[in-house]
């Protein structure tokens, strides 16, 4: 029974993290799939969202400014908006750069963002990071939340304490996963409507042929900035959810570009860029492969050890983390060569507007 619950909880956590990556991939899809913007600064923008959320919602702290203790929803909205504002500034100055140039510029910008979080110790607590970040649903069991309205109208502190103690300790987990999936669903619905709308058609046109779009009266530069901002705002929201999931963020490893940025790109390319469903599918698929590959690789190494009795597999075991990275790299090369358009390729609506 415990085992079944265990698998269920692991599955929920896969869904939660997969959902966060799905949001990142959807944001990237707006950048790349819709508008053809090679944004390689995903980790930086997610970090902006995560830090905005953390600084606004954590309880007062002696380590750093902030700790405003604001409600979670305000933290999420702010993460969304601040990421957008930062993106607007970056977008306006760098949007005219083409493909690889924009990629290099955004990588550089993401690194600068991380350096700022790392060095502005009085705001972000520097490399030591911010902990005790509240998590949706679970946070209600903290007394600073249930001692305040609206919950305090329903019952007093003892009532709530007793109520939360009476629940199984993972009560919040399905709710948290559902919340993330709800965000994914809402963002997906909005983006899907935008994609088949005249806006999506115009963005595709800009991506396909900039000169012709310009001659058809489309304000190409402004539209590009717009797509950059919208995509980045979604990444900011994903960052806020990631901060909730981890409950602790620090600038160095949490937002490591070779893991986060790269993984999201693999997700989008594998799933099918330009296709929102592809982005979501790719995110869940690659995350499942990535997360489960640890279990799988260890089992595989055990089998190898059993077959070749006597050889020392401890080295392989200790380096299995690198084998995983190798695996993801090979998956990417395979997808690029065999399915260059992804598993779910972009499909133009058969009859537009429908």
């Amino acid at each position, binding site marked *: 029974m415990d085992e079944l619950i265990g698998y269920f909880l692991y599955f929920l956590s896969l869904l939660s993290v997969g959902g966060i990556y799905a949001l990142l991939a959807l944001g990237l899809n707006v950048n790349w799939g819709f508008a053809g913007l090679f944004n390689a600064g995903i980790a930086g923008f997610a970090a902006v969202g995560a830090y905005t959320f953390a600084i606004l919602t954590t309880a007062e702290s002696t380590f750093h400014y902030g700790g405003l203790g604001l409600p979670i929803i305000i933290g999420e909205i702010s993460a969304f908006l601040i990421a957008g504002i930062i993106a607007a500034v970056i977008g306006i100055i*760098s949007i005219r750069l083409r493909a*690889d*140039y924009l990629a290099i510029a955004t*990588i550089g910008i993401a690194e600068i963002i991380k350096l700022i979080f*790392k060095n502005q110790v009085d705001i972000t607590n520097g490399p030591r990071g911010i902990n005790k970040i509240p998590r949706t649903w679970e946070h209600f069991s903290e007394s600073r939340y249930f001692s305040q309205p609206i919950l305090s109208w329903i019952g007093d502190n003892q009532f709530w304490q007793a109520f939360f103690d009476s629940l199984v300790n993972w009560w919040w987990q399905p709710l948290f996963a559902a919340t993330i999936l709800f965000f994914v669903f809402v963002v997906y619905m909005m983006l899907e409507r935008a994609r088949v709308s005249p806006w999506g058609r115009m963005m595709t046109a800009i991506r396909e042929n900039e000169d012709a779009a310009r001659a058809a009266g489309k304000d190409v530069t402004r539209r590009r900035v717009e797509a950059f901002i919208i995509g980045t705002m979604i990444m900011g929201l994903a960052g806020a959810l990631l901060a909730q999931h981890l409950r602790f963020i620090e600038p160095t490893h949490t937002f490591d570009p070779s893991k986060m940025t790269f993984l999201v790109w693999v997700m989008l390319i594998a799933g099918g860029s330009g296709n929102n469903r592809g982005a979501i599918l790719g995110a869940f698929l690659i995350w499942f492969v990535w997360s489960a590959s640890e279990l799988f690789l260890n089992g595989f190494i055990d089998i190898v050890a059993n077959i070749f009795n006597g050889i020392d597999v401890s080295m392989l075991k200790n380096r299995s983390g*690198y084998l995983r*990275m190798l695996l993801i790299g090979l998956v*990417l090369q395979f997808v*690029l060569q065999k399915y260059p358009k992804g598993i779910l390729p972009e499909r133009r609506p058969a009859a537009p507007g429908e």
Partner: protein
Amino acid sequence: MWENFGFEFVNYYFIPGLVLGCIYALGAIGITLTFGILRFANFAHGEIMMTGAFLTWTFLEISNIFLGFYMHPLIACTPAIFIAIFLALSVDRYFYKPFRDSPTIIIVMASFGMMLIIRSLVQVIWGPNQITFVKGIAKPNSYLKDFSSSMDMMLLVPSKHLFIILGTIIIMLAFNYMLTSTRIGKAMRAVSDSPDLAKVTGIDVEQVIRATWIVGGFCAVMAGVFMAMDTQFIMSTMGFRMLLPMFAAAILGGIGRPFGAVLGGLVIGFAEELSAYPWFGNGPLLSPGYKSGVAFSILVLMLVFRPSGILKGRVF
């Protein structure tokens, strides 16, 4: 502040900047060539550099086992160069060539994947740990001391730095000769300047691409070995750490301009080291915590305000 602006400045800020700049410059040559001729940002370039250094170390160890002494790294790197060039050529053949006619993004993604594959392979084979390349401390030799007989007036340069600086100059001269005086060098310049025109004039583009990987691979390995000689250890992540500064150098100098890359490398190297100079007051100008930000900032500013680079390279 200006009264200190003498040999101390040269020894502790200028020469380190120059050495770092030389390493960046050599690495940036390969990046600017691939950018100019194959038209994509090769993210796996740093890994070729790192692999070269690991191979060189392996040959150093082999020489110790079979010959009983450590060769000079600059000798041990010869076989490493051949292997690294072979690696670069096979990566091109199997992972980049299928995408020659695809949109740029696809090949950039492929290089991104290669970066990961090569690094993970090195980590699986050699392990993730730091490996000592050369043991001990390279005490600097002093120059000009006899000339002035004052302790304050001497030039302190460890011999490893002399090797790096002179080595870079020799490679640059050879490279210059190649670009200006050999047939393939001229063809490389032609393709870089205008690929369509080059095709019309009957240049074998695939041959030029091979030459690009050979030259780029050679320079990358040399940059890796020089860096290993300077830091005296090697690590699987050293290539990636150098990648962005090298991109910055290539863009700063102007894409497709090998000498621009050298100039850009020197500028980035100096900027990084001089950012810690106490220009105002006693503290470093910029907190050393922001040191990697120097190259990134130059990179972003350059892209935004003058994407053609100092030497007017091409903008895509």
